[in-house]
């Protein structure tokens, strides 16, 4: 293992110290660096909180900022933060209009966010939840509730953040976030493992000439392990599953996110996008918004994921809305 570390036990807290020094628009509450919030919450706006394990930057905390999220509870590497940390974030970002939790579908996170919502309820804060489950490789159609949440949550954040910035009510922000959730699908492919600093060695191994389609962002088993194919063939196989669930026909419009898992150069992500774009073109569909880069990583895992959001008249302006966060800025086109 070659990593820039002082003490592996301080990996998360030292990372956070760097974040606070670099980005004064975020700060923390309850004297706990793992309770990250916007420095200046907007009066009367619905608060949006997220949370989850570390090791996925820019996910989750990187999207706390203008017109996106208001707070994030930060866990250890691949570990859920505590209900108490989520509750502290909730209390700070509630501006009287309630709080929406948006996070990925993982057991530990669900238990703790549910608990935090119950504690917030005792304080008289209304909390709603939207749980991301965009990873189509993690369970079959009909069992969507078992699917994990991965990079596609980016679109849910963006839709909800814009809706809240527009001054909509908690019910409306929740409805729109849920609409984005239901219209996004993601599939990933891994070329190598990741190393959890406190463990110090690879979580699993992928052979030199192999790839694993559908692997999760903590190394959860995927759908198939096979010989690495040319990039176009890999994209064809991955997107076939996406198109089966999100039909793309003539005139349909989409937003696409090609996400690097941490160890794959941007050049390769553009090679993947080239093929993705060709496939939409062949179907007569339009890719209206494109983001390519690292949005949800798995430490140094090599690989990529493709997330596709089907747009409609309601989602389109929310995805187009400008945002400015420490890890992601998007200005008006």
């Amino acid at each position, binding site marked *: 293992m070659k990593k820039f570390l002082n003490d592996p036990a301080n990996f998360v807290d030292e990372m956070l110290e760097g974040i606070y020094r670099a980005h004064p628009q975020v700060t923390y509450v309850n004297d706990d660096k793992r309770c990250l919030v916007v420095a200046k919450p907007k009066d009367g706006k619905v608060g949006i909180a997220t949370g989850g394990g570390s090791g996925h930057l820019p996910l989750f905390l990187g999207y706390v900022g203008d017109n996106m999220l208001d707070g994030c509870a930060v866990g250890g590497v691949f570990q859920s933060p505590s209900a108490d940390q989520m509750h502290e974030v909730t209390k700070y970002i509630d501006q009287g209009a309630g709080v929406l939790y948006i996070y990925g579908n993982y057991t530990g996170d*669900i238990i703790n966010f549910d608990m935090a919502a119950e504690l917030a309820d005792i304080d008289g804060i209304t909390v709603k939840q939207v749980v991301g489950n965009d990873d189509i490789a993690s369970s079959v159609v009909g069992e969507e509730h078992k699917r994990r949440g991965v990079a596609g949550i980016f679109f849910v954040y963006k839709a909800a953040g814009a809706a809240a910035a527009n001054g909509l009510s908690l019910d409306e922000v929740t409805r729109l976030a849920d609409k984005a959730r239901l219209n996004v699908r993601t599939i990933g492919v891994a070329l190598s493992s990741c190393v959890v600093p406190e463990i110090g060695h690879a979580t699993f191994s992928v052979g030199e000439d192999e790839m694993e389609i559908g692997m999760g962002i903590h190394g959860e088993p995927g759908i198939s392990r096979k010989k690495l194919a040319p990039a176009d063939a890999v994209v064809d196989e991955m997107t076939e599953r996406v198109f089966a669930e999100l039909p793309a026909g003539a005139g349909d419009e989409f937003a696409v996110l090609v996400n690097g898992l941490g160890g794959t150069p941007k050049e390769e992500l553009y090679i993947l996008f080239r093929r993705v774009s060709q496939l939409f073109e062949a179907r007569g569909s339009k890719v209206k918004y494109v983001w390519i880069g690292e949005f949800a990583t798995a430490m140094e895992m090599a690989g990529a994921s493709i997330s596709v959001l089907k747009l409609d008249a309601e989602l389109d302006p929310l995805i187009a809305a400008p945002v400015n966060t420490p890890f992601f800025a998007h200005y008006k086109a």
Partner: protein
Amino acid sequence: MDAIRADDLIGLFQSWRDMFATEREFLIALDGKVGDSDLGITMSKSFAAAYDTVAAEGAAAGLTKLLRSAGAIMAKTAPSTMGTLTATGFLRGAKALEGKDAIGTAEAAAFWRAYATGIAERGKAKLGDKTILDVLDPVAGVLETQAASGAALAPAMAAAADEAEAALERTKTMKAQHGKAAVFQEQTVGLQDAGATVGVFLVKSMSAFAAG
């Protein structure tokens, strides 16, 4: 005693705290067989914090407020799964007793039913999954029967404690489906579940307290 009132409840939390302090090492060893050994630490820390909180608030806060405060501080103190589930039980139990100022047999039944249901919902556990639910669900059932037949609190809790022991014995034949223990499914057969053991300890302490 015929009922547990707010001032008694503070004493009950003291009993729970003392019991988990005594059983700390036993639970660490039991959990260590198939889990991550933190159960004894989680429980002793949670109940110590809960007792301090209810003692500081005092009986004047009222029965349900004390239960709610205990649940809230537990969620804060021990953010492990079992700590969160135990906390949930107290918060749901408090909700079920809203407006009551004493726990008689019917209220004990309502409390443990809400406790068990809360844990099942939050932990997404079913009966037979080898969890604390496999103890608390039959305990609530016995208390409901006792309440229907008009039994006083002390004998009703004694019957519940007996059922808890029997239910724990039955978890030995089950295979773990949740948490780190699930990784060891087959090897868990023959072992009593650590979380279920916590359930037995809670009910037995409450029974001893009601008898005193």
